[in-house]
């Protein structure tokens, strides 16, 4: 029995682990003891069994003693932020920043690792002893795991990971967070990653102690020790990898936010790459190799793990950067072309990572939030649209992204009724959209056919459509031509028809010419020439005639003024804009009857015209124009430029100082309501007052009117701003009037018809009548008006001619 006790004692000496975990380093064991044990074992013939027992015992010690003890350091109660336990790694990384006592966790981690390391070392002793006991390595049974290469390490790692508590990565994160701080401080790169406590200069950036008491050196030493231990146990990758990655990702994000946010006028990628390799990568290398450098066997060789980190992190950095750029893409668009460097950066990122879908989604939503709501001016939306076209063009030549991103803008602009007007204004005036500049570049709108040829001759440069796009969008607009159209076409394309734009352009031009009446059309001619290059002559033919009317009128006026016969006994100078009615938008139906003596002057002018241009005469449109009058009243004189209606009103007060509104309305043929509005102009000037309701009296005496004297010409001009042209809907009805005879013909032959049939029949005819297009709704309005005029009868869903 005592034999066995002695034997057990010897065995325990060799393998203290059999008696439980003992962190005290095993003492040297005499060769004699080995001899003794080996002999006994061979007698028993159970060397292999013994080895297996030792193996099992080590495993169980690792699993049941060493590992639980290690994890005990990180019980939820010990780790401050349990709430993050269930969340993902990224969240944990974020919570690292918020941890109040990182330094405590830091030391805690170091303690735990130290303890683990001691245990590990004591176990590691077992292997050579077992080998010694068994004589040589060859005799070791295959089944004994511990004796295989890294057997103990593998077992330790497996057990550790099997019992990994969720909060652990927070601790690791805190550990490396402190380390990172130490590192950036010691490598004098702290400036690049300014931490919040840098402003407190009394504290050391690295360790948060007073500068005098700075213990960075010591702490760094500790960290290096710990790293070495972890590395020796083969744990550094497995145990800390994910927390480390999360921490670095956080640092990258912070860095990008700090350095790149809101700065678009220079490129950041180079600088970021340098930062990544200078700071992050050298820090990682430091973690993995710093402790080694003393041995300096292969200092230059970067471990594979660091390499794989680098690939991963570079990718992550590009992604984060791209995301940050994309999230600010709206500002980039607005800043274009100053923001070209940022777009170039994003372009490089997009080559490496496919962010297309993310980009389109995020851009669409930010555009919708920023410009596509009722609070934004149409002009601003257009400006945004043009800038977006330019910026996205720069980013993506194929135009696919553009197509997808701008689709909602187009849809939205289509719903605004002043879009066409704004575009036309933008085209002709200096404005924020630069549309006029674009127009001045003077490229023609590309025709689909031409570039179709191009595609074949240029096949070597063919590029497939980028993937990851909605197939519907592609089908909807499969032609590449559309996508490569220039900005003007893109803008005009909002409405899908050039004709509509040109009509609006004509209307606006008519308004402008009639408002100015200064016979100065040089700028208009220049614009028109530019537009002609782009949209072709035929669409702008009317405009050309209109401008020719202006120059012709100028000549005619000069001729008539130069006629010496006429200038005598003439009351006042008349100049006239003589228009070719067929080519101008139709005028509204306002009228004005001139007093006889004034009308005579116009008759004289007409006579002169008739003499000058044989067989032609003039129809005066008296409402439109501007009159330069001077009013002498009391002891003051008012010189002003007013509209003809205003002039005629005040002219009538010359001979009769009191007018009832009805009388004035009869004599001027201006409707009473409109007349009242005009009279208020003179009331504001203190010349006329409404003495009794409906009766207007001239104020001869100058009482308190002087206050109105400041009433400048601007107000008169405002009056003039009212368009002389018929409103769009009036013009439309006139167009439909063309069909009235058809409708009458139809209903005479077929007696009664429902509206959709009328519409269908008219559509057949429409192709003959200059291609006027109209919807059934418009037709309905038109027919209903005819019903009101008692020309049609509508009953039972069908229209009939009134008998």
């Amino acid at each position: 029995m005592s034999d066995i006790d002695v034997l057990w004692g010897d065995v325990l000496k060799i393998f203290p682990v059999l008696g439980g975990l003992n962190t005290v380093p095993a003492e040297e064991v005499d060769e004699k003891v080995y001899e003794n044990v080996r002999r006994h074992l061979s007698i028993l013939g159970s060397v292999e069994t013994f080895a297996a027992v030792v193996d099992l015992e080590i495993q169980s010690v690792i699993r049941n003693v060493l590992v639980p003890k290690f994890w005990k350091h990180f019980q939820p109660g010990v780790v401050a932020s349990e709430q993050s336990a269930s969340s993902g790694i990224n969240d944990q990384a974020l919570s690292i920043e918020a941890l109040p006592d990182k330094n405590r966790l830091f030391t805690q981690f170091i303690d735990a690792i130290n303890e683990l390391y001691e245990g590990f070392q004591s176990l590691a002793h077992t292997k050579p002893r077992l080998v010694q006991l068994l004589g040589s390595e060859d005799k070791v049974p295959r089944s004994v795991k511990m004796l295989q290469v890294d057997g103990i390490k593998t077992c330790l790692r497996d057990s550790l990971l099997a019992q990994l508590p969720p909060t652990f990565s927070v601790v690791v994160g805190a550990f490396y967070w402190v380390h990172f701080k130490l590192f950036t401080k010691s490598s004098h790169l702290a400036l690049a990653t300014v931490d919040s406590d840098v402003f407190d200069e009394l504290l050391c950036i690295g360790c948060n102690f007073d500068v005098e008491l700075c213990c960075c050196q010591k702490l760094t030493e500790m960290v290096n020790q710990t790293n070495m231990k972890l590395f020796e146990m083969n744990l550094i990758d497995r145990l800390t990898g994910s927390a480390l990655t999360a921490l670095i990702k956080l640092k990258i994000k912070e860095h990008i936010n700090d350095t790149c946010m809101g700065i678009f006028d220079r490129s950041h990628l180079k600088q970021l790459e340098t930062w990544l390799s200078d700071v992050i990568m050298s820090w990682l290398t430091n973690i993995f190799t710093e402790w080694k450098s003393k041995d300096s066997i292969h200092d230059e060789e970067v471990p594979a793990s660091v390499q794989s980190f680098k690939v991963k992190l570079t990718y992550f950095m590009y992604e984060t950067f791209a995301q940050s750029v994309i999230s600010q893409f709206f500002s980039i668009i607005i800043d274009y072309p100053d923001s070209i460097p940022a777009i170039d950066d994003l372009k490089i990122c997009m080559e490496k990572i496919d962010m297309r879908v993310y980009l389109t989604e995020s851009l669409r939503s930010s555009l919708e939030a920023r410009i596509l709501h009722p609070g934004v001016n149409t002009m601003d939306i257009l400006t945004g649209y043009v800038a977006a076209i330019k910026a996205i063009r720069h980013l993506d030549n194929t135009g696919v992204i553009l197509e997808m991103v701008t689709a909602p803008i187009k849809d939205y602009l289509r719903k605004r009724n002043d879009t066409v007007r704004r575009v036309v204004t933008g085209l002709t005036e200096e404005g924020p959209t630069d549309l006029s500049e674009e127009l001045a570049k003077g490229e023609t709108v590309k025709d689909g056919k031409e570039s179709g040829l191009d595609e074949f001759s240029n096949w070597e440069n063919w590029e497939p459509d980028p993937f990851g796009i909605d197939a519907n969008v592609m089908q909807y607009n499969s032609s590449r031509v559309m996508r490569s159209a220039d900005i003007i076409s893109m803008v005009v394309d909002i409405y899908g028809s050039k004709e509509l734009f040109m009509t609006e352009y004509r209307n606006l031009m008519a308004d402008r010419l009639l408002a100015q009446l200064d016979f100065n059309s040089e700028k208009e001619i220049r614009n028109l020439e530019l537009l002609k290059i782009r949209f072709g002559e035929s669409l702008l033919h009317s405009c050309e005639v209109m401008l020719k009317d202006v120059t012709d009128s100028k000549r005619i006026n000069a001729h008539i003024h130069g006629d010496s016969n006429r200038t005598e006994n003439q009351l006042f100078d008349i100049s006239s804009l003589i228009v070719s009615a067929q080519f101008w938008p139709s005028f509204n139906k306002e009228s004005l009857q001139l007093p006889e003596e004034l009308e005579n002057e116009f008759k004289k002018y007409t006579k002169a015209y008739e003499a000058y241009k044989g067989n032609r005469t003039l129809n005066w449109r008296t409402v439109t124009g501007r009159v330069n009058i001077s009013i002498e009243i009391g002891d003051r004189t008012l010189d002003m430029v007013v509209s003809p209606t205003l002039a005629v009103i005040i002219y009538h007060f010359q001979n009769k100082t009191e007018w009832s509104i009805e009388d004035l309305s009869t004599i001027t043929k201006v409707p009473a309501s409109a007349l009242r509005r005009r009279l208020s102009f003179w009331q504001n000037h203190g010349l006329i007052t409404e003495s009794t309701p409906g009766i207007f009296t001239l104020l001869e005496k100058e009482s308190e009117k002087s206050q109105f004297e400041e009433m400048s010409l601007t107000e008169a001009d405002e009056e003039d701003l009212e368009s002389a042209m018929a409103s769009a809907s009036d013009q439309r009805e006139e167009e439909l009037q063309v069909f009235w005879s058809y409708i009458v013909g139809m209903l005479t032959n077929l007696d009664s018809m429902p509206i959709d049939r009328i519409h269908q029949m008219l559509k057949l005819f429409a192709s003959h009548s200059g291609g006027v297009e109209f919807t059934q709704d418009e037709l309905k309005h038109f027919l209903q008006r005819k019903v009101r005029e008692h020309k049609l009868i509508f009953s039972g869903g069908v229209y009939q001619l009134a008998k």
Partner: protein
Amino acid sequence: MKVTIKSWTGVATWRWIANDENCGICRMSFESTCPECALPGDDCPLVWGVCSHCFHMHCIVKWLNLQPLNKQCPMCRQSWKFNIH
């Protein structure tokens, strides 16, 4: 009170003094142009026949050139003579 009109800038539309509105040949308005012209008025004038019918000059000239023998007014079939005022 005395109102003096110093100058008046007005707007007028011109038209031909003719007994019809549209050219009987091209069916376009007289104030518009014949199909071949771009600019109305001086560049595309009207002419009158002694039969009192009038047309765009370009239209009637073209028509007359198409008549091999006796040149007739397309409206009244009287022989066409230009009425020079």
